[in-house]
């Protein structure tokens, strides 16, 4: 069974058809990339999945549940977690507290009493250690390099033990080294079997990372399938003419 299924999803704002009949699915363990020019409806699609944009019509199911029946704050509980386009860290919490915040909300705490269970603190500490944030865990995020802040965001999302991670342009605005760094993190997570849906401008990066590619244009699904084959389709090439593909 597919993990996430979008069935003829439409999001219209007044006259603007931001997403206009998109259908695709994400399989368990898959790293699905979503590309498309500016304004093609990528972020709106993720917003629809996380219920921050209202569906005009269509249906989205996650792990067999229609997400229309799940309040936005409960999406975490069923294992759906996202990051946002801009950095959204809580400025007056330390890196550690930003990560703990998410771990606690996920409810690790309730499992405390059970034998062998992890507390939110231990869980987030382990993640901090694993993703090399130990040096900065007591800093406020505002002072950290951009790449590190992104990393904190991803770790924070991971601390809720998601089934599907939705990443909205995780490497936007980063330099080469930082990109490579994040790409490595994503590869590692993918190798562990975490399902991911990643929005990205940088087609090349997704080609190397993903095992499924979805291309949007003007709110519609332009193509989908194996990444390299999909990217070389004439329609996709045409949609990207005009310099929308980022070239470093």
């Amino acid at each position, binding site marked *: 069974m597919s993990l996430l299924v979008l069935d003829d999803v439409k999001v219209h704002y007044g006259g603007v058809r931001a997403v206009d009949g998109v259908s695709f699915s994400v399989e368990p363990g898959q790293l699905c990339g979503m590309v498309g020019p500016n304004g093609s409806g990528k972020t709106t699609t993720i917003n629809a999945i996380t219920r921050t944009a209202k569906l005009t019509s269509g249906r989205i199911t996650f792990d067999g549940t229609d997400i229309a029946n799940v309040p936005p704050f409960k999406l975490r509980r069923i294992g759906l977690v996202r990051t946002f386009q801009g950095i959204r860290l809580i*400025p007056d919490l*330390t890196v550690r507290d930003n990560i703990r915040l998410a771990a606690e909300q996920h409810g690790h705490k309730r499992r405390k009493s059970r034998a062998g269970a992890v507390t939110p603190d231990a869980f987030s500490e382990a993640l901090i250690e694993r993703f090399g944030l130990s040096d900065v865990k007591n800093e406020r995020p505002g*002072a950290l390099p951009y790449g590190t802040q992104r990393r904190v965001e991803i770790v924070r999302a991971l601390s809720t033990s998601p089934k599907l991670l939705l990443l909205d342009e995780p490497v936007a605005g980063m330099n080469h080294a930082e990109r490579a760094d994040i790409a490595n993190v994503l590869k590692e997570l993918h190798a562990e079997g975490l399902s991911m849906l990643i929005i990205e401008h940088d087609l090349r990066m997704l080609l190397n990372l993903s095992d499924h590619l979805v291309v949007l244009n003007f709110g519609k699904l332009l193509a989908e399938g194996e990444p390299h084959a999909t990217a070389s389709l004439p329609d996709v090439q045409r949609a990207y003419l005009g310099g929308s593909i980022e070239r470093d």
Partner: protein
Amino acid sequence: MKQRSSTKAPARRRALGILGLGVATALIVSGCSADPAAPGSSAGAGIKITVLADITGKAAFFGTAIEEASKYTVDELNAKGGINGNQITLTVKDTASSAATASSLMNDAILDNTDAVIFGVLSEEALAIAPLAQDAGIPMINVQAAADGITETGDAIWRITPPQGNFYPKLAEYVSKQLKAKTAAVFYVTDNAPSVTLATEVMPKAFGDVGISITDSVSSSSTETDLTTAVSRLLAGHPDYIQTQAIGAQNIALITQLRRAGFTGGIGGGTSLGANALAALSPDQSNGIVYYSSFVGSDQLPYASGNDFTKAYEAATGKQPTTFNAETYDAFGLIRAAVIASGKVSRADIVSGMAQVASKGGFAGAQGDPITFKDRSADTPGVVIQWEDGKETLAPGQ
């Protein structure tokens, strides 16, 4: 900012908080030591009177009048050898129209060797400090502070301002006889307790007693800026006379708009109308307006003690005494009468002395001869004042 926030560690919050508490404590401590109360003279060698008044704040106008009169009265009494041979030490403190500040100052007075407190003017302050005075057994004489529940606090709490309702029969008689009014309308504000009582209970009865019928009773909240509708309603019944029980700017607005609308009949109001509204108006709008009070600075009063006060006060200060000056003078007069009655100057003696003064028919003061007391509140018939060219005059024919 940025750098600062970057150096914060969460564990330090506690330490900083404790530091904050330390600063806080330091502030409290310095707060308590900053107002050293000079020890007063002991009973017998003198009498220490503290005046708490709104020298700044929303009632500053009245507070300054009380302060001036206090200084005048103490100088006068001390020049005559004090009260029963006790020289008066006067302390004047500013309550800044704040009940909290007034409470603190009353507390200072209680801990100090103050023998009596004279307070003016806001009711909300008086309500807050009267229980403190009563508990400490310190006599407190209120100037103005017209709300219910102040003198009811206990035997130490007195009021030197007679209730405004006392003056209404005289005003009604004047409006009927001198202004020849047959009908009247009234405007009042709903958020001022005395206004409501006076306009809805006292005035209809007093005016009814002299045969004046009330055409309409119009109310508003005291913050309302628009009175055009109120004016239209007041005038709809074509009354001969309009009484206003508003406060401050509303009196000015109402009188102006009534006159602009061509109303030529009599207009009247309450005690503070002159100072509070008429002084701000031009003579053609304000001349001839009448209001009641316990006193007017005139030497034509029907009792000698009032005329004497007016003359002496004008001679000493060069100013016509106001109602508030007179009430303050009488507050000291009550303390003096109480000390003479009991023969001693302790707090308890003044309290019992005041009771003796009241039971023996009062004393002669600026507001009357005698000023009698009912339920620890002064009780005089009052006078009708007519405003002429920016001055209070005794309305003719009383």
